[in-house]
């Protein structure tokens, strides 16, 4: 990536999402900050319940935010928007959902599913253009135009997810939130869907926010990664940096949890279990701070000193093993 003059497409500042149930409230997302540059794939990784999906949904406006700003192309979007503004935003920002079986209307034909957005924004001049757009959308995801009159339950999981992608792509968006798009899919077709998403990224210069928990997929697919734990971002780094030099203990245990395809290594591997109660949390309140360029860690001054030593050691080890 060229580092100079990267245009920020989405800027999330001090985002907080609170769910209120009667009088009890639960903060699912706490003080989250990140920037997404135009044309990159930014991944949010964390265990289930960590708030990844909530962040994605807050950005697209499905969840209300209780604090902080979401700034898309220089405009704050988590406030009350005028009809025209929210219309424009909906066109530019689309979402790919996790479960293709649940996210398609079972009682509507594929043609209706794909044309739903087109109809809402009248993105066609006449019926002929609309049908052409539907046909092209189906072809672009490897489906056949004859599938138009079929119902979602007649398709396989991978085909359904491709319908979900076609539905988002037909709107010609700039920014896509992909909420675990492949975790409900069979392993054999995951690559197909990911390659399809990459194809669209190259063809149309899309920006992705990729939400996932599968680290090997994230490593293959994304440019930068944010690791999230209990609603808080603990580390942000470019993909290879994060895998080479994980600093925060949670990131380290997360990376280590990826199973090795070698049973001997896998068996002898000593597991790092992240337990916040056993950590030394002395010192002032930690914050997300830059340790080296583009590498942010959630830490305070004392931890920063520790991480710097650790980082140096890791770099040295790497160099030695490369020799």
């Amino acid at each position, binding site marked *: 990536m060229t580092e100079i003059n990267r245009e920020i497409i989405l800027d999330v500042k001090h985002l907080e999402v609170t769910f209120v149930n009667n009088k009890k409230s639960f903060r699912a997302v706490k003080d989250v900050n990140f920037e997404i540059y135009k044309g990159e794939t930014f991944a949010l990784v964390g265990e289930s319940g960590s708030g990844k999906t909530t962040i994605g*949904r807050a950005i*697209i406006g*499905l969840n209300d935010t209780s604090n902080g700003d979401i700034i898309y192309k220089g405009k704050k979007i988590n406030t009350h928007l005028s009809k025209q503004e929210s*219309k424009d935003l*909906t*066109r530019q920002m*689309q*979402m790919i*959902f*996790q*479960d293709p079986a*649940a*996210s*398609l*209307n*079972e*009682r*509507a034909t594929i043609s*209706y599913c794909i044309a*739903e*957005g087109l109809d*809402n*924004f009248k993105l066609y001049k006449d019926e002929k253009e609309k049908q052409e757009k539907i046909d092209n959308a189906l072809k672009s995801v*490897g*489906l*056949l135009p*004859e*599938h138009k*009159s*079929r*119902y979602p*339950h*007649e*398709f396989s999981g991978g*085909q359904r997810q491709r319908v*979900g992608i076609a*539905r988002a792509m037909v*709107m010609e968006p700039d920014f896509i939130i992909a909420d675990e798009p492949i975790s409900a899919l069979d392993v054999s077709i995951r690559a197909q869907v990911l390659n399809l998403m990459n194809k669209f990224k190259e063809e149309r210069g899309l920006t992705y926010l990729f939400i996932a928990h599968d680290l090997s997929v994230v490593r293959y697919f994304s440019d930068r990664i944010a690791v999230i734990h209990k609603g808080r971002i603990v580390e942000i780094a470019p993909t290879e940096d994060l895998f080479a030099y994980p600093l925060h203990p949670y990131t380290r245990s997360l990376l280590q949890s990826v199973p090795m395809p070698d049973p001997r290594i896998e068996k002898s591997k000593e597991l790092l279990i992240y337990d916040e109660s056993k950590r030394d949390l002395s010192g002032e309140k930690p914050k997300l701070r830059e340790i080296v360029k583009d590498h942010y860690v959630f830490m305070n001054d004392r931890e920063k000193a520790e991480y710097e030593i650790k980082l140096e050691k890791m770099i040295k080890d790497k160099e030695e093993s490369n020799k």
Partner: protein
Amino acid sequence: MSKENIISNDSFEFYKVDDSASEVIAAPEYSYWKSVFKTFFSSKIAIFMLVIMLFVILMSFIHPLISKYDNQNMAYINDSSKWYLRPSLEHPFGTDDVGRDMFDMVWAGARTSLFIAIVSTLITTVIGTIVGMFWGFSKKIDVFMIEVYNIVSNVPFTLIVMIISFTLSSGVWQLIFALSCTSWIGTAYFIRVQVMIIRDREYNLASKCLGSSTSKIIFHNIFPYLISVLVTNISRDVPHFISYEVFLSYIGVGLSEKVASLGRIVQTNAKYMQSAPYLFVIPVFVTALISVSLYIVGQTLADASDPRNHMI
């Protein structure tokens, strides 16, 4: 080794794989309504009941047009030879205490009762469904409507109907108003619960992300899922209103003597249960026939309209 047996790269050529071939769906196209009728007509009892239902409905709407039955026409009131005639070819259901033909009277009565039940069901279902869908969808409406529901549903239905029919005097349209003026809220509540179950499913969120308006989501995403519960509801409501009309006429708050209705026929002839049982048994049997056939046809149709029953 001979030369022919040597395998080299030249003996192979690339096979072009047609990716689109694997995407073809071989199964015949699914059509919702076709599957509904296929499932419905696979039940023999339903077909039998449908025939009975159509016969009863056609009889009660066509026969009174031919017989021109008038409940107040008592031409034979002084001719004792026309009273209490047993069922015969001339009078298939016999005659009553003033010499009126029971066959004409029963079908005219069935017409009135069916008309009241169908119109009341129609009003209840249309209002109840529209209100229920918005009620279930919007949390703001819910807060208000749940209180209205609590108040209305705690007042006995019979009391409301009795007061309305006393104040508005008796008549077909007054009875329809009395039956449907509060019962729509029951349907609305039922629909509200169904809507709440499917309201937060992911495909509704997807529609929202695609910019669909609330009314579009309600009518395209939620309404199709309600068809089978609506049919269930209708198939329960029609017999319910028929028996309610019978009950109200029986206790004397329903219709007046001006029009024949099944309820009135049963009520006036109840006293002949032993002396001339056909006067009582036949109208009751016709009432039961209407209720049972409508109910079974409706229930089978409700099952058939649920796509989960379409898989073979």
